[in-house]
């Protein structure tokens, strides 16, 4: 059974005189222990989609299913990692890590024990009591990821988590995240702008169109796990990259003609 399933989601917002369609007929699924990416041109309504999955928005039509149960409009059922780390500056690193667990109602002692066990494992040993502003951008994103990872919900939604990082840190973080994920195989829905990132990390990729967004194509990424960075030199990798690039470019050109 699939962990998350979106069934023909439509979403329109009222603007000036008519309704603006943002999402049109979006159906997708994330299976148990699967790493699924969504890639699309900027402004393709990905954050609207996340708000629907998170339960902040009820779609105009369609349904959100979690483990086969309809959960449309229900909050608190997914674990979430935002684009910006959104660490609370007054909380120490370990207190930031337990925030999602705290909100989910897990006992503080238990949450802190888990945070203290994990922080050294993600290379942040010794920073437990520090405030977030002493950390670099990459380290802050590690804290943000750990906060989502230790959250009790099984499905993790990652919203362009490395979008604000420089290229070098970004590559390092991708390898780091893959390494951790391959050890515990949570179900992940990952939104990104980077084609390489999607190909390198995912099991499956959904390519979205421009507004109103719909699923253009679903690709299965065949590379073996654990993934090696060397696959980026693979001929098939290049071929898939060009294919997705072509799809997205058509979308952008299509958009410019209007």
């Amino acid at each position, binding site marked *: 059974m699939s962990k998350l399933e979106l069934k023909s989601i439509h979403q329109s917002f009222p603007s000036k005189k008519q309704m603006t369609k943002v999402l049109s007929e979006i159906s997708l699924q994330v299976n148990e222990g699967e790493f699924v990416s969504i890639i699309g041109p900027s402004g393709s309504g990905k954050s609207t989609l*996340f708000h629907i999955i998170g339960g*902040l928005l009820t779609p105009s039509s369609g349904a959100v299913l979690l483990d086969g149960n309809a959960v449309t409009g229900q909050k*608190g059922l997914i674990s979430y990692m*935002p684009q910006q780390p*959104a660490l*609370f500056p*007054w909380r120490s690193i370990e207190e930031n890590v337990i925030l999602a667990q705290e*909100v*989910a109602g897990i006992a503080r002692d238990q949450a802190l024990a888990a945070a203290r066990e994990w922080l050294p494992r993600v290379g942040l040993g010794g920073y437990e009591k520090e405030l977030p502003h002493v950390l670099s951008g990459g380290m802050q994103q590690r804290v943000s990821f750990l906060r989502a990872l230790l959250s009790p919900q099984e499905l993790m939604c990652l919203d362009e988590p490395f979008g604000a990082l420089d290229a070098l840190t970004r590559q390092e973080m991708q390898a780091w995240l893959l390494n951790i994920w391959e050890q515990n195989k949570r179900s992940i829905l990952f939104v990104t702008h980077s084609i390489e990132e999607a190909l390198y990390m995912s099991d499956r990729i959904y390519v979205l169109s421009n507004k109103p967004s719909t699923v253009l194509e679903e690709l299965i990424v065949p590379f073996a796990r654990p993934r090696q960075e060397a696959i980026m030199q693979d001929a098939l990798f290049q071929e898939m990259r060009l294919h997705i690039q072509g799809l997205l470019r058509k979308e952008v050109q299509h958009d410019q003609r209007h």
Partner: protein
Amino acid sequence: MKQQRWIRAGWPPIVVVILVLLIWQLAVTWGNTASWLLPSPLKIMTEGTTDMARVWLHTQATIKIMLIGFVVGSGLGLLLASILHIVPGFKAGFYPLLILSQNVPTIALGPLLIILFGFGVLPKIILISLVCFFPVTMATLDGFMQTDRMMYNYMQMLGASKRQIFFKLELPHALPFLFSGLKISATYSVMGAVISEWLGGGEGLGYYMILQKSSFRADREFVAILVIVGLSLLFFWLIALLEKWIIRWNVKRSS
């Protein structure tokens, strides 16, 4: 390094103050002004030391009502800001009235408060609280309204309840704002205390000033003014120290 900069920035105003005091002293000695009208700085200092015991007693009384009024007023201010923020519709209804209410000079309420509550400590504390609560309420409300959108969005995505959002995000986020309100209230509370003592009662720096006025002791008035200024500065400094101790995460903003 930091200390050096402080000394460099600190000496010009100190030199100015010394010069002013010197000119004042010389003007009084050579200018033939009546010493009961404008006492010289030296005379004020000697008077301050001779009358110190009595001034200290009155100062203690003032500090007492000032602290009670400050704590009550700021506490109510924080509570009011929280209620206006949390209860839907309250802010829309009460915020404009709150602004309007500040057109009433609080001091003008003093005589009325004395009629209503007598000459005891109660009307004084009410007056100081009234003066103190407004800056705290406004600053804290401002802090609630400026809550970081990203963090707020994140809390919503987690499915946090209104209560969790308030206590885990909005309240700590508003703390620096609360402190800027508290610093204003701290200086207001000293002023409020002295004025409330002018209006009635038998102790406090305000009462001491009224007493000296009746006997034309300008020198002693200057002593009282000096003590009040000192008190104001000291209280402000204490709150600023508390702020520095509690809010350590703002270092990021300055760098």
